[in-house]
Each structure stands twice: as C-alpha cells, then as structure tokens.
C-alpha cells in the first residue's frame, strides 16, 4: 500500500495525479500520490450493504413467520406449530444479532468513507436514520422479551410481544429506504442555491424524507423483504420435504413462508412496474440505463435478454414500442435515452442493464411458481404433487436473494456517477484517507468468516428436527403451553 509519488510506468512524467486518475490498470497505481481510492471505498460499501441487505430482509420478513406460526399454534392448539415457532425464534435470535451488528458498521462507513456527503448533507437526510434508530430500539427490546419470555409469559401475552417486532422491523425498513430514496430524489434543501454556491440552505428534513421516490422505493423494498424471507425459509423446508420428511411439522414449515411469499409476488411485480414508470418521469437516465436505450425516441422498443456492447443491445429479443408502452402506458410515448446527458453523467450501462434483466427474469419465474402453487391449492387444497415443484421451491430461495441483490445493484449503480442525484458526485464525497483498500480486504475476510459462521450456526439451529418420519410429531412436545407441564425434564426427551 505504498503512497509513492512517482508513476511506475513512466517515472519521469510530471503529471502524476492526472495519470493516476485516468489509469484503469492495476490498483497500485491508483493509490499513488494519495489519490482517493474511490473504487475501494465503493466496494467496501457495496460489500457491507450487500451483505446486510439479505440479513435485513430476514429481519423484516421473518418475525412475521415466527409470530404467524405461534398464532396458529395457540389458535388451533397445534403443538407442531408451537414447536416450529420456538425453533424459528432461535433462528430469529441469530439473524437479529447478525443484522444488528452488520447494520451498525454501515453507519460507521457512511462517515468513514463518504465524509463529503455527510459533512454537507448530514442534517438534510439524517432524520430518518434517527427515527429508524428508535424503531430498531423498540425491535431490540421486544426481541429480548420475546426470546427470553417463552416460558415466562402467558401464551397470548407472549404472542403479543412478537407483534411489535414485526411492526418495528417494517418501520425500520421504511425509514432507511426513505434515505436511499432521497439519494435518488434529493429534496429538503435549496438545490439551485447549493449548485451555485456549495452552501446548503432552507433545510427541511421532512421534505427530504417524503421525497418523490419514497413511496415506490419503500414499497418495493419491504415487499422484497417478505419475498426473500418467505422464499428463503420455504426453500430450507422444501429440502426437508424432498428428503421425505413430510410430517405436519415440515409441511407447515414449508407452507407458511411459501404462502406468504406467493401472496406478495404478484403485488411486487405490480409495484415494480410502478417503480419503473416512476423512473421514466423522474430519473430518465436510470431507466435508459436499465433498458440500454441510447437515443431518445417515440415508440421506443424494449429488448429482452441480450448483452449491451458499444452503445447497443445485441442478441436480444426486441419488442417494438414495448418500452414506451411499459414506461408511459402509451405505445407512442417518448422515452429519454442516455444521449440526454453528457457521457460522464451516465451510469455503466452493461452492469445496470444485466442486473435489471436478472431481477425481472427471477421475478417472473417466482410469479410462475406462485401461480403453480395457487392453482394446486385452489383445486385440491394441497401442494402440487410434482417433485419438480419442490425442487423449484428450493431454487426459489437463493434466487429471490439474487433478485434482491440484482435489484439493488440496478438502482444503486444506476444512480452513478451521483451519490446525490444531480447534486453531488460520488467522487466529491469519498474520503482522501490512504489505505482504504487494506481496510476493504480486511473486511472481506471478516465478512467471509461471518458468512461461514452464520450458515454453520443457522444449520445447527434450524436443522436437527430431522426424524419426523414416524408419528412422533403428532404428540405434543413437552414444555409447550398447550399441554400441562410435567415436573420432570420439561425440556428433556420423553
């Protein structure tokens, strides 16, 4: 991590800093002369956020499943459902802890990596984070009560202590995403005055929070969280069903999350359409990048699949007027192309477009899977008989997480080169500190270890319920409140 001041290619060249800025080769050179290491800062942020976002989705969607299982258990006096709720609540404990700490590091990184953003706009967009802190606090308090209150509270009271976890989780997601929406649609200060003078005046944090991108983005994200948590949890239990563990416990463990996700999926696709149409009106360059549309045109076509090379999409399936129809619900509407802004204000189209296509593809697949399930349930009140359904459900779990990441890449990279759309570039916000790349590599190691450990622990916690081939599951387990508690070995085997 040397910060030498001579260029290694041509040591005599006087123009070191310009050279280093334009050089796209090995990173050692970019680090020379104390240049801000934008790429390392960006990758560190992407890694931390991309990791946290998956866990956070479980943090938002999973408590609803735990509470639902407990509600079923209490209402129907169903010991299997109560067992499930208990086991899931242990999973919740692990996920919540990991989500809490991986989220904390993000607020460190916002200041460490992007001081230009925080110094200038901290008071404009900070409010939702403060409120999110409160929501998170409420969540943490009730998680503490819920997890440790299983045998200390009356069943209905215990169930009720789970409800604030669900509400606060959704609220947290809403507030955090309003802040991200602000980066796309900055409001709550005098933009013209800032662009002219670099001075932030007329701050209105509520206007920043309720910016135009807030409704579509928050809705899209919260529904995504329920899909990721639902399909993810269902996938784990689909594996059990495929392995022949088809007792009530495992059927319920699959049905609850899968039903939740299947309900949400069609709504999510409608919301996705809304979010894309929002871009057409408010962030046209991002939409143009999502679709790889170079020229502004009426009756713009949409291209499905293919790859974006040298300003055009090749090998794709072109649907005439498709984009105009989707974006404005009018086949002849004009859609702005990338050419509307100078080249240095365009996002990297190939990345954005590929991510977007991937998200849409997976979303469509999940819709088909949900429909398959809905039809079978509607006709026969049971799961589709085909094993291929369960195999697809196993795949749907990771696929939903991939769609989540792809959608996130599409929206975040699609905003580039701006950190605050149209107002501040990422390069203006980044820290000058040396050695950011070293910190990034260290964090890669930490997150790799954390991933391995989390998966390992979750397998230990969630697994192990594997021997339900017999009718043991029809007997109420000891320690659950639907049966009189025995004095001896309340938690021991019978």
């Amino acid at each position: 991590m040397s910060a030498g001041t001579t260029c290694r290619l041509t040591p005599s060249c006087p123009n070191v800093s310009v050279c280093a800025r334009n050089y796209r080769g090995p990173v050692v050179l970019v680090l020379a002369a104390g240049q801000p290491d934008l790429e390392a800062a960006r990758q560190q942020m992407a890694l931390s956020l991309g990791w946290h976002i998956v866990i956070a989705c479980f943090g938002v969607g999973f408590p609803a499943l735990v509470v639902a299982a407990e509600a079923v258990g209490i209402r129907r006096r169903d010991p299997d459902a109560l067992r499930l709720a208990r086991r899931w609540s242990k999973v919740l404990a692990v996920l919540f802890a990991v989500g809490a700490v991986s989220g904390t590091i993000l607020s460190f990184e916002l200041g460490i990596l992007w001081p230009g953003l925080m110094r200038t706009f901290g008071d404009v967009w900070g409010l939702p984070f403060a409120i999110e802190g409160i929501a998170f606090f409420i969540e943490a308090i009730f998680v503490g009560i819920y997890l440790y209150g299983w045998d200390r509270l009356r069943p209905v009271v215990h169930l009720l202590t789970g409800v604030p976890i669900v509400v606060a989780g959704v609220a947290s997601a809403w507030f955090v995403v309003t802040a991200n929406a602000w980066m796309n649609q900055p409001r709550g200060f005098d933009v013209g005055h800032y662009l002219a003078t670099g001075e932030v005046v007329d701050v209105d944090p509520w206007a920043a929070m309720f910016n135009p991108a807030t409704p579509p983005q928050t809705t899209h994200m919260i529904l995504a969280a329920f899909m990721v948590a639902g399909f993810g949890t269902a996938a784990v239990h689909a594996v059990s069903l495929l392995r022949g563990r088809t007792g009530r416990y495992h059927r319920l463990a699959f049905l609850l999350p899968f039903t939740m996700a299947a309900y949400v999926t069609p709504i999510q696709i409608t919301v996705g359409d809304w979010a894309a149409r929002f871009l057409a009106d408010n962030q046209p360059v991002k939409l143009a990048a999502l679709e790889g549309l170079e020229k502004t045109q009426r009756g713009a076509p949409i291209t499905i699949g293919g790859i974006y090379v040298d300003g055009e999409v090749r090998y794709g399936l072109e649907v005439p007027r498709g984009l105009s129809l989707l974006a404005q619900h009018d086949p002849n509407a004009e859609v702005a192309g990338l050419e509307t802004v100078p080249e240095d204000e365009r996002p990297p189209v190939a990345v954005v477009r590929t991510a977007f296509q991937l998200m849409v593809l997976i979303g469509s697949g999940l819709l088909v899977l949900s429909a398959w399930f809905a039809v079978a349930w509607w006709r026969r009140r049971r799961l589709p008989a085909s094993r291929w359904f369960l195999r697809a459900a196993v795949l749907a779990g990771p696929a939903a997480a991939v769609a989540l990441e792809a959608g996130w890449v599409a929206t975040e990279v699609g905003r580039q080169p701006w950190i605050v759309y149209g107002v501040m570039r990422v390069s203006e916000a980044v820290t000058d500190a040396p050695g950011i790349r070293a910190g990034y590599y260290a964090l890669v190691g930490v997150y790799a270890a954390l991933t391995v450990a989390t998966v390992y622990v979750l397998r230990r916690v969630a697994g192990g319920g594997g021997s339900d081939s017999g009718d043991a599951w029809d007997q109420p387990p000891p320690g659950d409140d639907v049966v009189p508690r025995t004095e001896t070995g309340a938690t021991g085997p019978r």
Partner: protein
Amino acid sequence: MTLPEGVIALMWVGVTLYAVFGGADFGAGFWDLVAGGDRSGAGPRRLIEHSIGPVWEANHVWLIFVLVVLWTGFPRAFAPIMSGLYVPLIAAGVGVILRGAGFAFRKAVDDLGSRRLFGATFALSSVITPFFFGAVAGAVASGRVPVEPGAIEPFAPWVQPTSMLGGALAVATCAYLAATFLAVDAWRQRQAPLVSRYRRCGLGSAVVAGLIALGGIAILRADAPRLYDGLTGRGLPLVAASAVAGLASVVLLSRRRFGAARAAAVAAVSSVVWGWAAAQYPDLIVGRLTIAEAAGSRATLVAMVASLAVGALLFVPPLAALLVMHARGGLEARESDGNGGVPPP
C-alpha cells in the same frame, strides 16, 4: 442553553448509557476471556451469558443512537471524526460485529469446539472494541482530529498518549463495571463461589482502573493541556464526584454490599463522562470546533428532538419492562441445555 447544546446533552445521555450498560457488556466479555478452561470457566461463562443475554442488543442501540444524533445534528463534527479516525473506528466496528455475532453464535450452538471458537471471538473482541472507542475519545478530547477536508493521517491522530490512556481506561472501567454487575447477578442466584470471584475481580480491576486514572493525570497534563485545564477547572466537581463514588463502590464491594457497590460504580462512570463533557465545553472537538459551529440546521434539530420525544414515549415503557423483568430474573434463561426448550429429536 441553546438548542444545539440541548441536543448535545441528549446525545451525551446516550454516551453515558452506552458507557455504563454497553461498557458492562464489554466488560463481561473481558471476564469471559479470563474465566479459565472449559471446566473451571463453565460456571462464570453461564453467569455471563445469563447476565448480558437478554439486554446486550438493547444496550448496543445506544451506540447507534449516538452516531445518528451526531451525524444528523452535527454533521460538521461527524464527518471529520469518522473519516479522520477511520483506523480505530474500523477496528472498533469489526469488534462490534465479532462481539455480537460471537456471543449470539455461542449461545446458539452446543458442541464444545464451536462454543470455544465463538466464545473466544466474543471475548477477545469485547476487549478490543472498548479500547478503540477509548482511543477515539482520546483523539477528540485532545483536539487531534483535523476539521478541514484534506490529507488524512491514518495513525497520527490516535497513536498518542491521550488515546492510549483513553483506551486503557475504557477497558479497565468496563471490566470494573461488569464485575459489580456480575457480582450482583451471582449474589441474586445464590452462587457463593461466583459472588466471591466477582468481588475479587471487582476489587482488582478497581485498583487497576484507579492507577490508570492517577497516572492519567500526569499524561493529560503533558499531552492534552486544554483537556487537563478543563478537568481541573469546570469539570473538577464532577471528576471529584467520580473519584468519591469510585472509592465508595470499592468500599461497598469489599463489605459485600453488592447492589450499592454497583450503583456507586455506575455513578463513578457517569460522572467522569459528564466531567469530560464539562471539561471540553463549548468545544465538540477540542480546540478545533465548537458545538455551535458543528450544528446542523435548526429545522433538523427541532424535528429530531420531536421525533426522539415521541419515540421515547414508545420505547421507555417496554425498555423498563425488559430491564425490570431481567433484574427480577423473570427472563432467566432456561436454555442451559442449549436447546431453547425444544425437545431433542
């Protein structure tokens, strides 16, 4: 008191709560680290798990609270502090991740190998994290955080005597606080050997913390004269109160008055935290940035205070319930079988 000063006071309440409750949780990790081998350490470790299990996440939120209030209310201080002290802050951030994950993971598994690994991660990071937070405090308090954007030094702002003092004092204080908390918990559970263990630990760490604090007087005088003047000037009553409370808590601990000893230890830590605030008032970064200069827009400060007030109405009752239930043993872990009440298959 101006509005920004009011918001800083609110944030300082968060700093105090994090120093006391978060500090006690970190200190518990310190005692976990030195609890001994698998067999001899099993009892202490079970007590530690019971003691911090239900509350550490709620206590952790005070850190988040401090961060968001600082960045929303005082963006011109947040940006230089975070970016200027990025090395100790990344280290502390990694420590936060490993501490939380390690603790949660150890609770969730039951085989010895993984419990050892996760436990060691939890315990080691519980020592590292407060050290780096203390170093950050030392850099802010000795005015070594450059405020203007420009070249950032990775080590110079915090590799200096005041930060090292801050780090060492933080670790020792956490250990001391935790010992008094653990002694109370062990006493409530009627675990005589653990009671005397943490009584001993508390007395030992009190001596260490006291020696560090005494030595610190000389260090601050030479290395951070402005802070020293503040501590011996405006902050003197609070510093003196802290010393008295600290001594009282040692006496109470040795006389086995555990509840009172814990209260006195909390008072000692709280007073020194407020003594530090008084000493550097009206500066937010000593000698470089005042509270008024760092403050964000008035509209944001008003909105934040209003939101926090509404939020407090929502979170204070359940928080009180959680702490009371925990204190009364209502949330006693019945999970010593490591299986959460789920019958083994």
